[in-house]
């Protein structure tokens, strides 16, 4: 069998490179991370001819081989390293027929590396409509390459492209132009020093190390002496190089490409007039945000309720079917609800990415960046951070996954770190019950409900905390990142359903496989802690029966008291007791302590846990509320849930990182435990201090 062909798919952003990748590989793709960094690595395979395997690596989009971000650096590192197992036998440069000039800059650079290179001109189906004519044969000659005219939208030209890939060995490896003429003397010296090496490759190593930082390069020992050219001289040379390349491209295209300018006036300017308008632009954007919000908040609730009841009945079924015992309990009460806790997020993730991929595919997202940049940059955020921050109001999990679309790592990290401050829907049950308990049911100015205003204040507080901490993080975090801002405003396109579908499937898979195992593990641990305990825990039933022997309770009431007793004496109950000294200054007792510890699984668990502890056996809000209102603070003798402790609890839940699933997804998205742990510690500390101050001040 012939050896596998390694193909690298390279191209500018917005050339439809990913559509080409999807067309070539179908769902036969794997998405992971490059080791040690958070850049997505997409690869796939297809079979061709007599079972020959073609392996395709979809490299991050880049405008040139002069990296200014970690993503772009991945491309250069691969192309400079012949020993990399992914080093391409052939490079396919994807270009967009309407932006051919700019796309060819990258093409000529790759050609200079001596790698067999195919030029795939995408969106060829638009040529006729746009009155574009291209002399393919002449262009092939000038560029010393083979060209495939393709359309991923219409699925045309892919057989030709696959043929070219199959026959890559016949491609010319000569450069399209001689770039070293920009500084003949310097390059002569370089050539003499490294006669074995490709000249352009040497040049890339030198400029790359100066621009982007140094990696270990055994094969280029001694190259350091060529960096003595001052940095600004090197920059000037790079500028000259770019200009020279564009000169070559302009000359080449003058002879081969013809665009009828009259016909090129199109939809774009008409749409932009509205979508980037100073008023309408924002109105439309907020309308879209509202729609996204509606989808992840409201529409998702139907499949989520279904998932909830399905897993509950599955758990019930397991319990009644399997022989009773620890193992059955583990499956029915630990593993099945744990899995349910993962699956429940899928509808929200799918909806959010449905919208985001449509916004990206249509080219609208660049307009969002344009509109929001001025406002967001003050806080060290990207214009694109708006989408995660708003989505975070429903749930931080999909929101944090949505930060992938932010190119700048520092802006992305800040967005990830501050998104959990926004008021997610899991905080809502906690807020509602506490507000109902401690905020009087009065009206302000006769119209506004005081309770409603308090809830609104909690939302504003969450958003304010996110923005404020972004501002602080921007000042504190020392991360090398691009300091300038250039955004391409691509043409508007109708999204390809296949691309949208693949994104949604890919993101869902990434969540289930990436964060799911952490969520499952933590939820099983929490279940074990709540379901087992030392000493008297195991005699709960007889102790409770003895205790209530005189009260003539029915079986159901006894069972509730047994549950309550068990929870108090379980390991989690012991933890609750143990942390009581720490939470007492906040106005809480050990019961609230238990509820706080167990709501680490998810914030809304707080309410259910209190229901169990108070042995009310029902999660009816009214019942729990009445029971909570009757609780008395053992030290002060006042009602436990009064204004001071209520406000303290509200603030605690506003700031605390009470969500293991969020930690799991942050771990996945930042590719390390450092950031989620940092988040956990800092957010908990803020929550503690603020809640403490509030209680001490108000009591």
């Amino acid at each position, binding site marked *: 069998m012939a050896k596998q062909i390694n193909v690298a798919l390279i191209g500018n952003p917005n050339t439809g490179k990913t559509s080409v990748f999807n067309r070539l590989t179908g769902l036969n793709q794997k998405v992971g991370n490059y080791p040690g960094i958070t850049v997505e690595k997409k690869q796939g395979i297809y079979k061709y001819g007599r079972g020959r395997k073609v392996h395709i690596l979809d490299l991050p989009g880049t405008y040139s081989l002069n990296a200014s971000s970690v993503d772009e650096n991945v491309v250069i590192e691969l192309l400079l390293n012949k020993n990399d197992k992914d080093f391409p036998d052939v490079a396919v440069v994807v270009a967009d027929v309407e*932006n051919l000039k*700019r796309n060819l800059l990258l093409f000529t650079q790759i050609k200079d590396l001596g790698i067999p290179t195919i030029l795939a001109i995408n969106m060829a189906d638009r040529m006729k409509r746009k009155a574009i004519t291209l002399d393919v044969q002449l262009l092939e000659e000038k560029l010393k390459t083979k060209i495939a005219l393709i359309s991923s939208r219409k699925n045309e030209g892919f057989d030709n492209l696959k043929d070219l890939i199959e026959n890559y060995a016949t491609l010319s490896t000569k450069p399209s132009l001689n770039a070293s003429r920009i500084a003949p003397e310097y390059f002569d010296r370089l050539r003499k020093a490294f006669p074995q090496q490709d000249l352009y490759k040497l040049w890339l190593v030198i400029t790359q190390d100066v621009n982007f930082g140094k990696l270990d390069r055994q094969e280029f020992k001694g190259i350091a002496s060529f960096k003595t050219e001052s940095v600004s001289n090197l920059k*000037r040379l*790079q500028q000259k190089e770019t200009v020279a390349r564009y000169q070559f491209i302009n000359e080449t295209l003058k002879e081969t490409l013809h665009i009828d300018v009259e016909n090129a006036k199109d939809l774009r300017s008409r749409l932009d007039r509205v979508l980037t308008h*100073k008023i309408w632009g924002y109105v439309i954007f907020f309308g879209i945000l509202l729609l996204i919000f509606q989808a992840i908040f409201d529409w998702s609730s139907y499949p989520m309720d279904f998932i909830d009841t399905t897993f509950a009945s599955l758990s019930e079924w397991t319990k009644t079917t399997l022989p009773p015992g620890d193992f059955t309990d583990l499956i029915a009460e630990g593993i099945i609800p744990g899995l349910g806790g993962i699956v429940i997020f899928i509808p929200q993730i799918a909806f959010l990415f449905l919208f985001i991929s449509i916004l990206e595919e249509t080219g609208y997202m660049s307009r969002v*960046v344009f509109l929001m940049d*001025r406002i967001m940059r003050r806080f060290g955020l990207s214009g694109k951070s708006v989408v995660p921050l708003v989505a975070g109001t429903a749930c931080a999990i999909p929101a944090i996954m949505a930060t992938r679309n932010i190119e700048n790592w520092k802006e992305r990290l800040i967005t990830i770190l501050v998104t959990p401050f926004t008021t997610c829907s899991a905080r809502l049950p906690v807020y509602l019950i506490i507000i109902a308990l401690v905020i009087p049911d009065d009206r302000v100015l006769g119209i506004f409900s005081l309770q409603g205003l308090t809830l609104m204040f909690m939302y504003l507080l969450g958003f304010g905390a996110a923005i404020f901490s972004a501002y602080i993080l921007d000042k504190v975090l020392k991360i090398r990142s691009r300091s*300038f801002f250039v*955004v*391409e405003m691509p043409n508007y396109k109708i999204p390809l359903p296949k691309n949208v579908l693949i994104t949604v499937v890919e993101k869902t898979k990434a969540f289930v496989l990436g964060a799911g195992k952490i969520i499952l593990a933590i939820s099983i641990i929490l279940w074990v802690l709540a379901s087992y305990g030392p000493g008297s825990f195991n005699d709960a039933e007889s102790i409770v029966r003895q205790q209530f022997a005189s009260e003539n309770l029915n079986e159901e009431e006894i069972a509730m008291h047994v549950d309550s007793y068990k929870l108090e004496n379980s390991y989690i109950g012991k933890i609750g007791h143990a942390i009581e000294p720490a939470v007492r200054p906040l106005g809480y007792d050990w019961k609230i302590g238990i509820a706080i510890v167990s709501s680490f699984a998810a914030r809304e668990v707080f309410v259910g846990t209190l229901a169990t502890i108070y042995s009310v056996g029902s999660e009816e809000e009214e019942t729990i509320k009445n029971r909570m209102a009757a609780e008395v603070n053992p030290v002060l003798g006042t009602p436990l849930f009064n204004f001071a402790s209520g406000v303290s609890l509200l603030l605690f839940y506003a700031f605390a990182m009470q969500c293991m699933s969020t930690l799991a997804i942050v771990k996945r998205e930042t590719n390390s435990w450092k950031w989620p742990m940092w988040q956990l510690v800092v957010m908990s500390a803020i929550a503690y201090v603020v809640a403490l101050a509030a209680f001490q001040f108000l009591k």
Partner: protein
Amino acid sequence: MLTIASLKKGQRAIIKEFSVDVVPLKLLEMGCLPGNEVHLVQTAPFQDPLYLNINGSHLAIRRETASKIEIELI
């Protein structure tokens, strides 16, 4: 000094020479080259960022960067 930042909406100009010490190479690579025609398509509120059409390349850059690129009106 007349720069891209002083362009009014709809105005056209030619980009003059500029130094890479103050303007990122990336901008050059994306098609903002000396000698090219530039045209202001749209500005965001507070006149920042600027949405430009440079010889068919559509880019958005910040006012700060734009104020470093000299132009000549046509």
